[in-house]
């Protein structure tokens, strides 16, 4: 959101309703999703979304570390969202800051809302999300990558979890903010949808919106998630369809 006392604000919306990168208000940035790029992981995915690059890996179900977190009736879902030192304009000190810890928590809760954790008592399912290049919307990109990685790992889930942020930019509700829009816009509202049930398992907001704006933002976000959902399924189909070929080649 707009920093207090910051310098000149760029023109975020032109007279024709085009955004800073030429998109319409309800238009997503380009997204590429690749399932299975990391051979060492049980499941993995790489997401390029606008100028974001995010890698996710899933390990598990496996033994719980540290042991005292073990639960007798279900798997523990652990999530670590981390930003590489070089992923942002000003170098970030390595290690999880408070923002990363909060995001790790809400992403873990989102995944726990869809994974059939009771099928794997006394185990841990670990989702690692690494932001390699950041340009607003990294937690949503991380959710998408983590969700595809969970599917790639064969973890049973209610559904995939498409995610997107909706924002308010120059007074208008806009889908999928990029960095300048996030920095100088009025609000940011990331969400993750369970397409099957139409319910949200992640929802955060910061900035300011009126009630009608918020309603509009929620509806726009749900539509955005549906588009992303198709791309996620396509990435997994491609992964499975490639596998037999690779097997033949071997």
């Amino acid at each position: 959101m707009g920093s207090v006392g910051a310098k000149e604000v760029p023109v975020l919306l032109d007279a024709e309703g085009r955004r800073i990168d030429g998109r319409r208000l309800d238009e997503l940035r380009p997204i590429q999703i690749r399932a299975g790029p990391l051979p060492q992981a049980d499941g993995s995915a790489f997401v390029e979304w606008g100028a974001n690059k995010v890698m996710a890996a899933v390990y598990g179900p496996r033994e719980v570390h540290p042991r005292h977190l073990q639960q007798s009736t279900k798997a523990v879902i652990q999530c670590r969202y981390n930003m590489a030192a070089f992923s942002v304009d000003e170098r970030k000190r390595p290690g999880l800051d408070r923002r990363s810890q909060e995001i790790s928590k809400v992403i873990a809760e989102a995944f726990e809302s869809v994974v059939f954790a009771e099928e794997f008592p006394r185990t841990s399912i670990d989702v690692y999300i690494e932001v390699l290049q950041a340009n607003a919307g990294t937690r949503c990109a991380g959710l998408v990558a983590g969700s595809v990685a969970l599917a790639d790992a064969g973890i049973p889930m209610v559904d995939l979890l498409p995610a997107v942020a909706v924002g308010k930019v120059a007074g208008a509700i806009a889908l999928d903010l990029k960095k300048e829009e996030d920095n100088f816009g009025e609000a940011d509202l990331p969400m993750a949808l369970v397409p099957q049930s139409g319910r949200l398992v992640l929802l955060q907001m910061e900035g300011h919106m009126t009630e009608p704006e918020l309603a509009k933002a929620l509806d726009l976000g749900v539509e955005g998630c549906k588009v992303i959902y198709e791309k996620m399924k396509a990435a997994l189909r491609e992964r499975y369809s490639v596998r037999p070929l690779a097997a033949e080649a071997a």
Partner: protein
Amino acid sequence: MSDEVAAEILQTHILDLAAEGRRLDGRAPDDYRTVTIEPGFVATADGSALVRIGETAALCGVKLEPGKPFPDTPNAGVLTTNAELIPLSSPTFEPGPPQPGAIEVSRVVDRAIRAAETVDLTRLCVTPGEKSWVCYVDIHMLGHDGNLIDAGMLAAVSALSGAVLPAKRFGIAEADYPLDVQHLPVECTFVRLGDTIVVDPTFDEEHAAQGRITVATDESGRVVAMQKGLVGAFSPDDVKAVVRRAFVHGDRLREQVRGARR
């Protein structure tokens, strides 16, 4: 083991009650517990308030000290929010560095304070790029019976509302003067219990809940922050309904904050 069984029985009971629109403590789904605000509780702080929501208690102390503005906002003061879930206040809190739960409370309260522009940070600048006030908002939980975010937020905004800049002590002005609080954000938290969404959950309700959602509103009709937490899901229509209810509760809570000012 018997602890787990007892917890499960309690959870089932809470959900059964909720299905009939009832709650363990007799409240209706949209009833908020009694809130008390005791401003000026801590004399060593520049502003403070002890807030109780039922048996949940949050003590906030605000300290104001001269410091340096951030390089990218040379004309603004600095505000930082920290919540401590000290082990004194609940058998479930552990000593040691802040856990994700404490960090979440800090950050959700911080976002609302910031997004609502509660304090005009530019007025905390003393010499651009050189010297500005640093405003520490420290929240100490003193009792945990659920709904920590709302309690922390009320304590923070009440403490800020009564805060005085110790300008004389630090040789910045001839006399101390009150901190200017221009907006009054409050958070309002709900949990899902089956098909019922109840406001102001207790500790036991949070443990039975299938999703938690917090909405921060300000006095000008704006939503300034939201946070979904815990395992569970909300439909967009749930969210819209909850926002509506958050404004109603918010306006009432704001009245209390105003009334407690002194």
